[in-house]
């Protein structure tokens, strides 16, 4: 009785799977996008529906400097990603520092804008629908910038102590992904609030 030769299944050569950190961060970004979508929809839905003033056209100024800074920070963090992959730690620290500084300028701009809106124009979250939707949408985005700033500053401090090296490049790339998302959201918020809504 001849036995049937068992054909071995074809062995896979390499078994590569995506990074779990980047996958997790991508999933978080999908979820966050839904939150932002709801707030953006609310903003657009209530555009021009306020029953009292002030209106966006009267009080809003386009934050050009902050926008340029925030968007450039995406470039600097991308360069920082490259630097940590190649193990160039000195330029990594510098580029990370630049990213943090740019984000800080953006947040300062928001703070100055809000101070002006609250104290000079008398616009608070309870003034009218514009105030409610504006502060919640821009505030939600600013909260995300603050969270990102906290993450980046921690890594910056670690890198100053020399605790970060190219082995951490995958972890850093997950945070960079978050930062790119925060920037991309700003493009949407900026367009809706300052270009269309004004």
């Amino acid at each position, binding site marked *: 009785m001849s036995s049937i030769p068992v054909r071995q299944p074809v062995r896979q050569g390499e078994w590569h799977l995506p990074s779990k950190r980047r996958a997790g961060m991508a999933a978080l970004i999908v979820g966050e996008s839904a939150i932002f979508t709801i707030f953006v929809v609310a903003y657009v839905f209530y555009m021009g529906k306020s029953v009292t003033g002030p209106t966006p056209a009267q009080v809003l100024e386009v934050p050009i400097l902050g926008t340029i800074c925030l968007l450039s920070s995406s470039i600097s963090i991308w360069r920082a990603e490259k630097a940590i992959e190649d193990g160039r730690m000195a330029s990594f620290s510098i580029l990370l520092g630049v990213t943090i500084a740019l984000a800080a300028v953006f947040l300062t701009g928001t703070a100055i804008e809000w101070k002006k809106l609250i104290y000079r124009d008398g616009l608070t979250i309870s003034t009218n629908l514009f105030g409610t939707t504006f502060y*919640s949408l821009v505030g939600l985005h600013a909260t995300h910038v603050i969270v990102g700033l906290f993450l980046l500053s921690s890594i910056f401090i670690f890198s100053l102590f020399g605790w970060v090296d190219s082995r951490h490049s995958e972890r850093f790339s997950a945070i960079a992904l978050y930062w790119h998302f925060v920037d991309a959201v700003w493009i949407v918020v900026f367009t809706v609030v300052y270009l269309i809504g004004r």
Partner: protein
Amino acid sequence: MSDIPLPISHVTDTSIPGSEPGTILEKLHGWVVTVDHKRLGILYILYSTFFLLVAGAEALLIRLQLAYPHNHVLSAQVYNRFFTMHGTTMVFLVGMPFLFGFANYIVPLQIGARDMAFPRLNAFSFWLTAFGGVLLYYSFLGGAGLYGVGNAPDVGWFAYAPLTLRAFSPGHATDYWALALIVGGFGTLGTAINIVATVIALRCKGMTLMRMPLFTWLLFVVSMLTLVTITPLTAAQFMLLIDRYLGGHFFDTQAGGSSLIWIHFFWIFGHPEVYVLVLPAFAIANEIIPVFCRKAIFGYPAMVAASVAIMFVSLGVWAHHMFTVGMTSVSNAFFTLSTMLVGVPTGIKIFNWIATLWGGRIRFTTPMLFCIGFLFQFLIAGLTGIMLSVSPWDWQLHNSYFVIAHFHYVLVGAVVFCIFAGLYFWYPKATGRLMSETLGKWHFWLFAIGFHITFDTMHFLGLLGMPRSIYTYQPDRGWNTLNLVVSIGGLIQGLAVLIFAYNLITSYWCGEVAGDDPWDAWTLEWTTSSPPPVYNFEEEPEVHSRRPLWDLKHPDDPDWEYEA
């Protein structure tokens, strides 16, 4: 059941986790600080079983109140609180934690991983969810606030604005509701992220996407759907809290706000949520039906495609909950058609399950009985769903007991039946002991009979015009007998659940010892010991087909010869 020795070397490891010496306090501490996906899965299941009993008791009190016209078991206020808490609890503290419990326990085992992608995030998410539940129920004590009015939330589980605004809901009951759901929502988001990352990044060697067990596939789809489902609710809850605490005007109609937008936001969450709950039920049926008819699942790629299709279609149907608010006829037509479209992929699934049963050697064990009940009931639930998707029909029956009957057919007839099936199926894996089949069959038959007495009858009450959310009714409406019948069915279901709870607890000590593979199944979780060791697999498994354990048991006739 099967005592074929498995040709796998590493299952001989019989060290049972949890048997290490230690005082009760140390063991309890071990459970609190655990990051093991299996323990967290069990915690999720225990947590949701507890709330299943609580919300079931609330349902019974609701039915007691409605058993007779002009009954006075509950006052109108307490009645409102009870149906709000019943709905919120069943969806957020029973349905989702149950399904995430299953996902936590089973998914890493099925893909041959040692844990979830982020074990600490996993523990954090569970405790957030648990805290959300406690917060919601604390409202019974703390919800009165400074005003001394209300205690538990009484705004309905969908909490339509402007009823939730300060002027109409003073006190803190609504705040507890919103905060509990925000906290629980973050927990849900964390677990969903974790499952997505686990499935993407931790599959064992050879486990390509098209070789993943269907349970894992569907939980992967559900988790992706959850990412975009629970977050709009969180956003809307933030808006509600901004309105209530910071004087915002999102839902304040006097300042130009719109209560309609809350309804939209809620159902953008609320309808996909139904699929978040029911897809894991499909997932459980996908594992159990093939094992108990001794055939590989029919149409595996079609099942995957149908699940992904349901995920996408489900995001575009929410406004069928809103036909009566007065939308344009274009919107009505769109949402009618998109809702009917859901019937196509779900129909594919039903046909595939039937084709799997066809010609199989069916073993009518308790898990299989529950799955067969699920097939019948889900079919009827789908058909009444298509009836309700027709907007003129919905105008007639919206907010009637017909709708209540329809969604309980989905949530009890499909989801709860499959949860029970899954518990009977995987209990031996988690504890090492089988649950009693005799008690299981009592549970099944009592529960199925009670279910049909209650929810079949509810359809007729709805057709006779009984609206939902009323705390009592006039005796001359012709609803008296039917309501009594519904309540009696509820009691029978309650009895069945008590039998189940007794079975669940006593089988832990008295159940028949299960062995590694009591059902002669084919997926990776049955290759390891019962209960599995902390590290799941001694050596990383390598798979070549959709049924790796079949290949191991039948080296002369392996599956990979037939799979593309």
